[in-house]
């Protein structure tokens, strides 16, 4: 469209929203977002679910356990954290109406888990995600988005789990490639007998890469 073109006046003048004198806002309407706060030490009262750790049904074919610990800056295990995971199914679809490709439905899979670290480590049972489009015509490596909540954390911290046995896909992944080489390993879960291990370091030399989302 040539901005210098003069439109033909085919009807009575109609003021457009967003223009001076129209009575409409000249900028997008925005409400201030509600500020975050710590979950505090008593999150177990409100955020405990009997089925929380099951992103996939118990016994689901191909199911894996992702287990890990959360460490503080002194290297001590954090026993009062909550870890939440969200991910695609093995075909790369999301069980969400917000997926622009349509909500996926994969048998025995809900994609979301919530676990505590009370025993010293968290564990979630899930299916390994497939590759997900990056929106630019390429594919992301299989990954899981993770939120960590705890007393002493005023706004949840966000990280991602990638998988050590996806070296090829990981090498192509645009998020991993954007990180300094020596920090990428903090996002890569190692293979274990029954799944994967993914430790989270809130601080220290091995501080996990956290993302601003």
């Amino acid at each position, binding site marked *: 469209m040539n901005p210098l073109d003069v439109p033909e006046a085919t009807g009575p003048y109609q003021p457009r929203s967003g223009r001076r004198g129209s009575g409409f806002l000249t900028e997008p309407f925005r409400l*201030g977002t509600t500020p975050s706060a710590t979950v505090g030490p008593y999150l177990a009262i409100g955020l405990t679910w009997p089925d929380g750790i099951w992103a996939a049904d118990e016994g689901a074919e191909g199911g894996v356990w992702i287990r890990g610990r959360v460490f503080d800056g002194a290297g001590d295990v954090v026993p009062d954290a909550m870890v939440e995971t969200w991910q695609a199914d093995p075909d790369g679809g999301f069980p969400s109406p917000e997926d622009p490709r349509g909500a996926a439905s994969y048998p025995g899979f809900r994609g979301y888990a919530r676990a505590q670290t009370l025993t010293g480590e968290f564990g979630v049972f899930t299916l390994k995600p497939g590759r997900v489009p990056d929106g630019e015509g390429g594919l992301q490596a299989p990954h899981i988005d993770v939120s960590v909540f705890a007393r*002493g954390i005023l706004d949840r911290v966000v990280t991602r789990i990638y998988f050590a046995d996806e070296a090829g896909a990981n090498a192509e992944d645009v998020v991993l490639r954007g990180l300094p080489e020596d920090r990428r390993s903090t996002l890569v879960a190692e293979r274990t007998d029954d799944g994967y291990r993914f430790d989270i370091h809130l601080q220290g030399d091995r501080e996990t890469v956290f993302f601003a989302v």
Partner: protein
Amino acid sequence: MTGTTSGSRLHVPSYLREDDSLRTPVGFPDYRSTGLRAPLRTPVDLPHRLTEVTGPVLGEDRVQSQDADLTLRNGGEAVGQRILVYGQVLDSGGRPVPDALVEVWQANAGGRYRHVVDNWPAPLDPHFDGLGRVVTDSLGRYEFLTIKPGAYPWGNHHNAWRPAHIHFSLFGRAFTQRLVTQMYFPDDPLFGQDPIYNAIPPAARHRAISRYSLERTQDNWALAFEWNIVLRGTDQTPFETDDDGDVA
């Protein structure tokens, strides 16, 4: 908002971040527990892709009707001042967020949590477990009947007392909208010395405080407090746009 597909490209909404000057920082020195727990490195920007703009659907199956009333548990009535807490969950574009799971937890009227770690010697109330859950309706509305929580000391510093508050957890519709927060009550005299409250930048603190609602206060029954919760909205508008993105 649902995006569209075009060939191999996916148009996904981008969720607006609140300006850093109005966001609660992840760590705050006066809140001692952050010292070893809040990450020290600057977080890496993660562009919003499919994983970030989708989220779990956690609806009605997690909630029973009695979960909205925290005052009647274990066959009796909780001690304390009965309050109605209600409001609307919106996104920053002002759009209601329907079908959102809202989870709350709080101390009892004496300021004590039903939790083994809480050793504050206020009595436990057998009829108050301090847990509630609701799902927002089609207009994003939620409502709880509960007890005004008491203040309690917590040892962060000399004479440290938490202002009365209710913990809230919300999912919204996308991973980026996930929010855990605390609702406060108007004019609490304990705000001044509370580092968790004061970690919120001054210009945003009012957003964490509920409003006394005379219109919903019920005669001879319960005080009412209104608290609207705003999750992050998208930078797409629901209006038609010109090719150059102007709002038409």
